[in-house]
């Protein structure tokens, strides 16, 4: 087996919540020991509800946020400890597509200017720039004429295409897409998803695809990681995870997802209660207050992610996995 293009090990990120000079600073564990890896040409889907830390994970991988602990290996290089300039160099091969196409394009700059920015930042020779610009804008399904226009002249779908063009123009190896279609309408969403899939084939891209929408992830991802309160609680290939979810949370998530089938006969698991606040998570397994199959041990001990046949899950129900494996 080849080495993964991106490997994250034991990644932790804390946010400091300070209420005032007099109080002890309070820490929120946004990410707590994340292990995840992606192989070249794959799409890793990361799903979770708001506040589960999925966006933080994306930003840590790009070093837009500095992780507190853990390793991030990209193409074999540890980037968790690189200095600013080295990180900037790495970003040539690792780009990001953002959620909100309305906010992430500077309203004062033309599309051409916005797309040139990465070329200047990474010292692409001047004479190559124009050709790259024109080529890239056409790849994402727009035309050269659009380069001299401003972001407000475009619809949401077109802006997201521009965002993708910006990420693509340096021909990176890895693209982190943070909720790239959740601000878009369904009919536009499918255009963008198709575009992303085409680009992946054409440029053999690797995606880390972050989304709260299970259907979208199910459609686009090869492997899926489910997050809950800063931890990965289940990680497997798409078919396995959606075909036979193991973690009670994943099961609930899948059953809560409304589907367009009037004869839907799935048994619906409706979770009681709210997502606990990340600043004050429960003891033991963080899911236990809402879990319908909780046991005594869940209240005290945090289950570890253990793997069997390429399907990892962090739940006490399946802790015997590891035991069986090792015996």
């Amino acid at each position: 087996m080849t080495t993964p293009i991106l490997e994250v090990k034991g990644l932790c990120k804390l946010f400091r919540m300070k209420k005032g000079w007099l109080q002890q600073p309070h820490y929120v564990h946004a990410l707590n020991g994340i292990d995840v890896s992606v192989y070249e040409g794959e799409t890793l889907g990361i799903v979770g509800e708001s506040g589960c830390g999925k966006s933080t994970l994306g930003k840590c991988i790009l070093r837009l946020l500095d992780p507190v602990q853990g390793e991030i290996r990209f193409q074999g290089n540890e980037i968790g400890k690189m200095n600013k300039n080295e990180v900037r160099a790495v970003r040539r091969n690792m780009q990001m597509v953002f959620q909100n196409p309305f906010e992430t394009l500077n309203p004062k700059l033309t599309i051409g200017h916005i797309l040139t920015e990465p070329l200047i930042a990474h010292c692409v020779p001047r004479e190559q720039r124009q050709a790259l610009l024109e080529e890239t804008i056409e790849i994402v399904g727009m035309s050269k004429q659009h380069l001299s226009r401003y972001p407000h002249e475009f619809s949401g779908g077109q802006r997201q295409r521009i965002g993708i063009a910006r990420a693509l123009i340096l021909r990176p190896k890895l693209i982190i897409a943070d909720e790239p279609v959740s601000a878009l309408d369904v009919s536009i969403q499918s255009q963008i998803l198709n575009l992303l899939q085409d680009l992946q084939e054409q440029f053999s891209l690797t995606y880390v695809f972050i989304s709260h929408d299970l259907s979208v992830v199910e459609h686009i991802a090869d492997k899926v990681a489910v997050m809950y309160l800063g931890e990965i609680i289940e990680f497997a290939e798409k078919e396995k995870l959606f075909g036979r979810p193991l973690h009670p949370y994943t099961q609930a998530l899948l059953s809560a997802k409304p589907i367009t089938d009037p004869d839907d006969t799935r048994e619906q698991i409706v979770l009681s209660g709210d997502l606990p606040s990340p600043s004050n998570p429960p003891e033991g397994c963080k899911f236990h207050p809402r879990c319908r199959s909780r046991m005594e041990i869940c209240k005290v001990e945090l289950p570890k992610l253990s793997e069997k046949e390429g399907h990892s899950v962090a739940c006490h129900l399946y802790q015997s996995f590891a035991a069986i494996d090792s015996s």
Partner: protein
Amino acid sequence: MNEVTKTVAHGATQAKSPIFPKLAFWGKIKQQRAAKLSLMVLLLISVIGIIGPWIAPYDPTESNYEAFLQGPSAKHVLGTDAIGRDLFSRILYGTRVTLVVAVMAVGITVAAGTMIGVISAYVGGFIDHLLMRIMDILLALPGIILALAIVAALGPSQTNAMIAIGISSIPSFARLIRAATLVIMSSGYVEASRSIGTPSWWIILFQVLPNITNVLFVYMTLFVGGAILDTAALGFIGLGAQPPTPEWGTMLNEGKDYLSDAWWLATYPGLAITIVVLAVNRLGDALRDIFDPRTQK
């Protein structure tokens, strides 16, 4: 099917006011018109400031003991003061004094305030904390008192008044600019730019600055109005431009002793101040409304 009852109803939130007609699309168009009008008034005033000395009928400092405390007449349009100087000429000359002092003062404010604000927001951390605490302390004193204290230290003169007014508005200007910069810094496009690997200088130059120029321009205009008022106030107290300089505040100070005998002395210079400040403020308000993203729908 075609016989649909045609009834008309309006939204719920309408103000029921038959007496006060609703001005259609007052908001934006009005603002653009106001901006144009006040800009024209200001241009006119600036022109007067420049060519004032040539169109003034009399020397503003030359006293004429045969015509003191004369009311407005054909000879002296706005009357004369206690030592017979022509009020109209003095007001014309004063335009330049007032404008120069106010604009220079705001220049000081903007230069220092923008630097402090942008640095504070961009660098953050300890520097930000330190700078903002200092600004807090200076804000604790009313602007005019701060200006007075500085004038007291430096001694009363027109230049010192200018410096004092400039310095005394730095804290509030810096805070406004800092807030505006922070908004831009936290915007999606700056983050997107950082994610590409763009260097900091590029982000400041092409992402932050173009987006705060509007704000900067609006605040600058609004501060000019305040600076004119402060200049005149210092002059009025006797701590600004010194007599016989024809400064509007100073002229009011001289006029206040003749309230019962020569109403024009205490009226026209004040009117001049009000008109200039009003024009500047209207321009500032209009610019703010035009640039305000919330009104740009």
